[in-house]
């Protein structure tokens, strides 16, 4: 603090309180609506104070949203995205920063191109591709007339149908969301800051590249990994469009998609109270992550060396 200025401090507090209120008002009303009965929630105007149905509604939302199943799905998907992305990114960052090989720059640019292209942009072709990811191979087989060839050799008429249908599967929900380069670049940047002496020393000791990776790079990367993991977990948990398109089986839906099913539509009663309880439930895990791991979350971003 450079100087004292009580008035300005008051103003600053007022600004921050206003900001905090802005964040809290929608959440507060979600809570209020979530604590009312169906009849009360339809009243105009909506009561400003909560009612007594909060826990009943939570329970009902939990069962209606199939949350015991969909929460598990969301956790699997979010953790899968987190672990998968960190793993492939670490490996490829290691490869492009610590090895000299002919197509290094090519690999770099291939990965680089995917940097800012979220799945939403190429949603239709991705859906098609992943609905049957084996289709390219199938084309290859058809172009090469392998079936005919085999039929000619064996005397049987053969139909080869390659199928790798990932609709309603965990890989189908996870893998397409791993396909972007962001984390790779992050680790690349980090590796570039690591003192050259470490690698030189490791080489002098005769350590293999993988040993160096495992015993030196990886431990050094832990703070970055943790911080990144938090952000990726939130990213995975909060996915909407992809699971919306890619799960047709209710048992494979994620929590956010299950919540969408709780939102009143034309052919159901306007149970906004249940929908809001469901919304609170669905946002609870990521909010807890931010609250409890906030130190890591900000630490990773801000001051890992302070």
């Amino acid at each position, binding site marked *: 603090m450079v100087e004292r200025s009580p008035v300005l401090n008051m103003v600053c507090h007022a600004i921050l309180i206003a900001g905090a209120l802005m964040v809290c008002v929608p959440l507060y009303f979600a809570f209020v609506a979530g604590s009312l009965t169906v009849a009360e929630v339809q009243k105009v105007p909506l009561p400003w104070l909560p009612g007594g149905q909060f826990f009943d509604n939570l329970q009902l939302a939990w069962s209606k949203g199939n949350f015991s199943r969909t929460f598990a799905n969301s956790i699997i998907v979010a953790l899968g995205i987190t672990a998968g992305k960190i793993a492939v990114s670490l490996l490829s960052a290691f490869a492009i920063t610590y090895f000299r090989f002919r197509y290094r720059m090519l690999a770099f640019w291939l990965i680089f191109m995917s940097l800012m292209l979220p799945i939403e942009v190429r949603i239709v072709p991705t859906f098609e591709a992943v609905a*049957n*990811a084996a289709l390219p191979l199938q084309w290859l087989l058809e172009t090469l007339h392998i079936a005919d060839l085999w039929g000619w050799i064996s005397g*049987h*008429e053969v139909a*080869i149908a390659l199928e790798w249908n990932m609709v309603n599967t965990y890989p189908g929900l996870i893998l397409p969301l791993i396909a972007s380069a962001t984390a790779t670049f992050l680790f690349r940047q980090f590796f570039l800051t690591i003192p050259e002496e470490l690698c030189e020393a490791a080489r002098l000791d005769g350590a293999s590249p993988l040993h160096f990776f495992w015993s030196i790079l990886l431990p050094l990367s832990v703070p970055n990994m943790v911080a990144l993991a938090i952000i990726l977990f939130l990213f995975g948990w909060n996915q909407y469009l992809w699971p919306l398109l890619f799960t*047709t089986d209710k048992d494979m839906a994620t929590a956010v998609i299950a919540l969408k099913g709780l*939102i009143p539509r034309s*052919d159901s009663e306007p149970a906004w109270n249940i929908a809001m309880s469901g919304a609170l439930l669905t946002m609870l895990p990521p909010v807890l992550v931010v609250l409890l791991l906030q130190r890591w979350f900000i630490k990773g971003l801000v001051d890992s060396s302070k």
Partner: protein
Amino acid sequence: MGRKVAFIAALFGALALAGPAQARVEVQWWHAMSGVLGDRLNELVEKFNTSQDKYRVVAVAKGNYDEVTNGVIAAYRAKRPPEMVQIAERGYMTMLLSGALVPVQDLVEQKGYKIDFSDFIKPVASFWSYKGRMSAMPFNSSTPIFWYNKDHFQKAGFDKPADTWQELEKQLYAIKSKGISECGTVLPGDFYWSLLENYSAINNQPYGTLANGFDGLGTEFVYNKTKVVSQVARLKKWLDDGVMQIAGQGFSPEQLFTSGRCSTFVNSTASHGNIERNATISWSATFLPHESDINPPLNSTIGGGAIWVMKGHTPERYEAVAAFLDFVAQPETQVWWHGATGYVPATNRAYALARERGYYKDHPTREIAVLQLSRGTPNENSRGFRFGNFVQTMLAQRQEVEAVFAGQKQPQQAMDDAVKRGNEILRQFEKLNAGKTPETERP
């Protein structure tokens, strides 16, 4: 040419040979029914499965109509389509010319079932058939009817809603001005279907050239030159005067009616189940109104879905499909489905059966849709709609109507623009399908 060996190799090593024939032949049916309707559909399938022991139909709910369509397209492209799929009426031309289907009438006749296709009620039959042959099995057919709050009308001194738009307007304004309800009617979510398309049919207005597309792909929209323009202007006026409300996201039009907030509501006859369950008011229903200078009004047209049969399956599976379709067409099945859901019976025989049993004495409003659909002789304005990319043209039209509601455009301008955009979309469909005739080959 030798034995045909088919094998499917999953990429991760699992190799499955087509196993020995199962005890029952199993076929899949992807559908779009949710909630109460979904439960009823499952009951229907269960009835079929227990009625015989050779076949088993597996009903798979794949979300709403759009999601089912996308699912089936993806599955077809991945060469794993289901045997049967339920597609909404608006997708008729896309399905018909897709080259991915087996025509239903050909299939059941080839398999030796004798379904009397001439017995289907006319708007249903003409909608789902091409050149007199049924392309898909009519399954859930509905039509919009006029729902109203009995108390509101009585309080305002009316027996029931008037037959004409002109008189109805006076009634709704009276109800509002007497303070009986703050909202005379609520704009239905699918107003393009009930208040523009069906409006055109009932009031004998052409919607497109070439008999609304029945006579060829060269059809063009013409509703910018008909009473549709004044209909849009009327809706806009009601909206401005507070006689009509829009429910908006998260609050359905039906709720505004069933909670007693709005006095009337134009909606599908299929909402009988929901309205019976949710309404806290004393309600009834009647025919859609018509213009005072159009007398007699023509029939309305259908909405809903039909069962399409996908190509690429084995003969024994098609046996199962044909058996199921035959089951669906039975008058008994039709009557049961009609009573369970509110959809109309698709055949005259089923309708007669329901009447005979006195069903409509207890449920008078359930008969309205059938009567409205089958009144008079359908002409080229009321037979139905045969437009390619009909979802896309509809969304463009809805956008233009919303521009009127928002006060951005005059009704005439908006309908001109909607027709222009719609015709571009139709030309694209024509270009793609030029010279194509639908599937006629046998499975």
